[in-house]
């Protein structure tokens, strides 16, 4: 079932639209930096990553990930997860899958797995596009860390991949919420929009100081902790919290999805 899901995605235009959007970001970053190299002086408000990309192709995949994460990632997660079951219900294919038969539990897990796999591929795609164009235009050099030390090209590449992996783990809770919503409705777009709104609301709530008490429990709270991979020594605290929160959301919402879906009348 999981393989069927990936094959279907492979033949779908929207997969390529997502890939174009995700792959385009690091390319745009490279082009923008090439055309107008930011000067180190007088650009205090520019993101620190952007300031240094001019000197190193390795910053392109990293900046790509950082730019994708706050908006494009919840969007893609909402699209893939929200549409997972509701889209099949809306198209009527859900009933034909279930009478094949595909067990309801298996269907939900395969949908969750496929959404995560596609998001993982998209993040790798961002890293790949960024590394390729960054490397072609600027070449690779050792990467300065946020603590002032430097990482060799190989070490830095590994950490960038680790960052992509952490970002994927970070979004897993949102994907579980999306799949859960998706099992409760027969409207694909409805579930997509609901999931995207929840993801982005969480990010906004995370920025509001008066909501500080709930911040550690928001599914997106630990997202930026991947930058800790580029400190020396690596500070694992933030990432550990992020992974725990994501795992908790995943466990709760996937369980809810499985329970709700296994008892639901499929009338679509």
């Amino acid at each position, binding site marked *: *079932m999981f393989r069927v899901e990936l094959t279907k995605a492979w033949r779908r235009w929207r997969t390529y639209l997502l890939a174009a959007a995700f792959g385009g970001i690091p390319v745009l970053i490279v082009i923008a930096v090439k055309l107008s190299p930011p000067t180190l002086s007088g650009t205090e408000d520019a993101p620190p990553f952007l300031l240094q990309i001019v000197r190193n192709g390795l910053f392109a995949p990293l900046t790509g990930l950082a730019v994708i994460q706050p908006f494009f990632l919840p969007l893609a997660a909402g699209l893939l997860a929200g549409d997972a079951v509701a889209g099949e219900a809306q*198209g009527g294919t859900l*009933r034909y*899958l279930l009478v094949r*038969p*595909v067990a309801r539990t298996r269907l939900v897990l395969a949908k969750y797995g496929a959404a995560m796999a596609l998001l993982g591929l998209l993040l790798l795609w961002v890293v790949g596009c960024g590394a390729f164009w960054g490397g072609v235009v600027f070449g690779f050099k050792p990467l300065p860390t946020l603590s002032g030390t430097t990482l060799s090209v190989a070490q830095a590449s590994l950490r960038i991949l680790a960052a992509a992996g952490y970002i994927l783990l970070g979004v897993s809770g949102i994907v579980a919420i999306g799949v859960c919503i998706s099992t409760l409705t027969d409207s694909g777009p409805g579930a997509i929009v609901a999931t995207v709104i929840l993801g982005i609301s969480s990010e906004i709530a995370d920025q509001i100081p008066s909501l500080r008490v709930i911040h550690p429990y928001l599914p997106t709270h630990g997202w930026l902790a991947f930058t800790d991979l580029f400190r020396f020594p690596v500070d694992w605290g933030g990432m550990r919290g992020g992974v725990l929160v994501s795992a908790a959301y995943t466990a709760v919402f996937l369980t809810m999805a499985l329970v709700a879906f296994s008892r639901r009348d499929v009338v679509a």
Partner: protein
Amino acid sequence: MTALVARGLTKRYGEVNVVDGLDLSVDRGELYGFLGPNGAGKTTTIRMALGLIFPSGGDVELLGRPVFRSGRDDALRRTGALIEEPAFYRFLSGRRNLEAFARAGGDGEEVRRRLDRIDEVLEQVGLSTAGDKRVKAYSQGMRQRLGIALALLGEPDMLVLDEPTNGLDPAGMREVRLLLRRLADGGTTVFVSSHLLAEVEAMCDRVGVLSRGRLVAEGPPGNLRGDAEHLRIEVGDPERAAAILRDLAGVAGVGGDGRILRVRLDGATAAQVNAALVAAGVAVSALVPERDTLEDVFMSLVEGSGVQG
């Protein structure tokens, strides 16, 4: 051996019993017509039989397996279904759709067997040449055919088809009827719902009539209709004609109004009726044999059950 059994099957939505204590039994190898007007509960029954919606009461067995206990997957695996209308991934071709469904569920051996059958089922429903077109570009009739192809994909022992001739032209309907007849003759149980009486009459071994969630009649289509035939007679002197006919052997009843009589025959032939009238000097200007249509039977059954609810 029974292929489908429902015992007191009930589905309640709010205060309404959409399916209301339905008892039903379909034998293996039978072509069973499930007849009823829209809203009678046909689709709800079919969805419960396939485990898609949960009954509020009673139970249902498919190929000897209770649908709402473990073991139903084995029954579903041997069942092909068309539920309400066909549904496909619009961005895939007909063939790729069948591939996607063939790969979903079951072990490797089963998947391979289903994949091997794709050409055969496309051929069976007359879609061999259109298999590589995207479903988006299919006509309603083509989608319907592909839906039947999907139902046939797993070489099922049991077919559950909800209005399979929907959207087909008369030639297509005939093809589907012949195909289903052929499958049933080959040992497949076919359970087909319809609101078209003529269709069910033309192909089914047995018909069950559903109205407001209950089975109001069941039997071979010929039996439902009854053996009695009618004559419609136009005469110059209806009162005298009626008196003569009431005394005639083989006439079960005489009714009618004005110059037109409706005579129910029970053994007498039209020729005998005509001869009797002419011999008595009654002028017969028209004599038309009329069969009770299944529609008459159907309407009387459905109206008869309309009291409750």
